[in-house]
């Protein structure tokens, strides 16, 4: 008995009997669900591309310009979806995020347009940062209040946040009697993207190379970790493959965003402002990564670490898997719930920064129906409404899928009714496929 054990423990991988594909997936430990989502996304993009070329007769959907815009549009929903993952994992729901977003946008509009310029002067560089902090704080406080009602007063999250959906939307209109506050502070507006709100070609390369370095460092330190404890290592070729795949995707993204030039009007205005003479054939100035996209990436990384590597994240999963067991293990589940909802509110506030900056104005209607897209993004990304299961990258992927449909269908000329039908169908289908996948995985 002891002998067989020693033989199998160090490298327990009965690979025999698996096909080459299965063996490959096993060695690289790639999440097959992620692979499925990537496939679905490519299918959607490809479908739009082909349709627009053959039916509409234009240049196709997969262009740097469309992909760049898609990335910016995904940011707002994506940021909130990362928080919704935590909420749903702990068997709760937050229907109020869209309204919190709208309310935060109005508060920030008032702060940066009506309040701060009086004290700091118009265009003061402190305005944007104070505004953003105020917005996120308001979101976090609202979230904490709702979390308190849910955790300490025992009101179901569905009801509390359904109430919040109405209350905060109503407050957003009450604050300024329904008016639109525009334009916002010019520095603040950069947080929403646009030609100036992007980091340019050089900046994008720096970001890209840092990301590549990060990927390689993670793979190497992961190997080192496994080695110190004598766990089975991934085959070296699988790690090399993963490294190449990760870096390749990052570099691909950099190439795409750098291939999208500023429009001619902006180039001319920029040249004029900086005393550059534009050559007759025009100047090619790249957008590079948009700032909101970088915000989303940063949020995604932070939230992934939070969820998978910290105590807090472990408790989120434990509460979702078995709330009673979590409590018996000494976890303060109420305090956790309050914190999770507060974090969700904070992210709604951040998302509000991005959304109102992108629109260059604050209206009480901002973020209407966002809660549904956010929940859909999390669920398409594999977060189980039964609780206990979910990933951050899945939710961001889900947001990208949702947003691809949202931008792609108007692009190829589907009318509004048909768009809703498709989005609704995709949501149900995605969840159904997920259920089938889980059943099979068992």
């Amino acid at each position, binding site marked *: 008995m002891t002998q067989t054990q020693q033989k199998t423990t160090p490298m327990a991988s009965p690979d025999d009997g698996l096909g080459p594909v299965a063996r490959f997936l096993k060695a690289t430990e790639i999440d097959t669900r992620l692979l499925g989502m990537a496939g679905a996304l490519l299918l959607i993009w490809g479908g739009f591309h082909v349709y627009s070329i053959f039916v509409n007769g234009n240049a196709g959907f997969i262009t740097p310009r469309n992909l760049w815009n898609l990335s910016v549009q995904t940011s707002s929903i994506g940021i909130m979806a990362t928080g919704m993952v935590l909420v749903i994992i702990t068997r709760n729901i937050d229907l109020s995020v869209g309204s919190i977003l709208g309310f935060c946008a109005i508060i920030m509009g008032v702060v940066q347009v009506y309040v701060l310029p009086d004290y700091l002067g118009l265009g003061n560089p402190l305005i944007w940062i104070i505004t953003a902090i105020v917005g996120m704080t308001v979101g976090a406080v609202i979230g904490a209040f709702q979390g308190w009602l849910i955790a300490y007063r025992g009101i179901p999250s569905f009801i509390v946040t359904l109430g919040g959906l109405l209350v905060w939307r109503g407050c957003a209109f009450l604050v300024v009697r329904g008016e639109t506050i525009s334009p916002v502070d010019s520095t603040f507006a950069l947080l929403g993207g646009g030609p100036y709100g992007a980091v340019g070609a050089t900046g994008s390369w720096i970001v890209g190379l840092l990301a590549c370095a990060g990927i390689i460092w993670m793979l190497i330190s992961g190997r080192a970790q496994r080695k110190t404890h004598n766990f089975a290592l991934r085959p070296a070729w699988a790690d090399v493959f993963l490294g190449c795949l990760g870096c390749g995707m990052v570099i691909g993204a950099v190439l795409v965003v750098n291939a999208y030039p500023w429009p001619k009007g902006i180039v001319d205005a920029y040249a004029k402002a900086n005393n550059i003479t534009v050559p007759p054939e025009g100047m090619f100035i790249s957008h590079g990564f948009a700032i909101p996209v970088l915000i989303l990436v940063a949020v995604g990384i932070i939230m992934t670490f939070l969820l998978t590597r910290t105590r807090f994240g472990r408790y989120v999963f434990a509460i979702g*898997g078995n709330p009673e*067991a979590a409590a*018996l293990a000494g976890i303060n589940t109420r305090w956790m719930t309050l914190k999770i909802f507060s974090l969700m509110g904070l992210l709604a506030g951040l998302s509000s920064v991005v959304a109102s900056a992108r629109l260059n104005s604050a209206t009480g209607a901002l973020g209407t129906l966002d809660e549904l897209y956010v929940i859909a993004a999390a669920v398409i990304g594999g977060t189980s409404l039964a609780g206990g299961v979910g990933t951050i990258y899945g939710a961001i992927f889900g947001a990208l899928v949702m947003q691809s449909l949202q931008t792609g269908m108007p692009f190829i000329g589907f009318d509004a009714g048909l768009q809703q039908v498709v989005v609704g169908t995709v949501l149900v289908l995605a969840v159904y496929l997920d259920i089938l996948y889980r059943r099979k995985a068992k």
Partner: protein
Amino acid sequence: MTKRGTPLVEMRDISISFGGIKAVDHVTIDLYPGEVVGLLGHNGAGKSTLIKCLSGAYQKDAGQILINGQEVEITNPRDARAQNIETIYQTLALADNLDAASNLFLGREIIGGLGFVNDSKQEAETRKIMARLNPNFRKFSVPVSALSGGQRQSVAIARAVYFNARILIMDEPTAALGPHETQMVSELIEELKRQGLGIFLIEHDIHNVMKLCDRASVMKNGQLVGTVNVKDVTDDDILGMIILGKKPAHLAA
């Protein structure tokens, strides 16, 4: 019946009620080091409720809990753990979506340099303790929902044993197990007893009680019927206590 020194645990005059129903009614029990005390009674007799006051899951309404002669306040599971009281619940209290290591260290994670959970250290430690408790255990990287009843049980036991418990509460540890695994649990109880732990064992199987326990406290309708030395009684005496709620005549002083 004279006992050596201070008891490890004394629960004095404990009462707890839920909505007017007295689940535990002025019950006093104690536990000495290196001893197994069986808690017996029908379903609903109040055994689990009583023991949950000790493990921190419930709070007593009245009474005292003494550990090594010192009165302590146990208001939540963290307090109990701080007193080296570990509990193996009947439901096992595992988070099904987490793997064995995450469950073992739940609430007491090993934190690395950057404030992150050190998963590989946790897994290595889990492998060590499992090698001792259940050498056949291999499934370290899957959620515990994918484990068999016995394997899940060994995760729950490992969690209690790993953190150097001095007082162990086992709520029907063998209820869901096959004969082989039951044997393993029995051996473990014997071993822990030799190491000087005190064990409260909630058990329905009268044969296990006779085999494993030194004393047995019997409860009925929230009240203590009596505590007997297992050596001095027969199966039938204990069954009589459970069913009739009376101490056997030859012991009733």
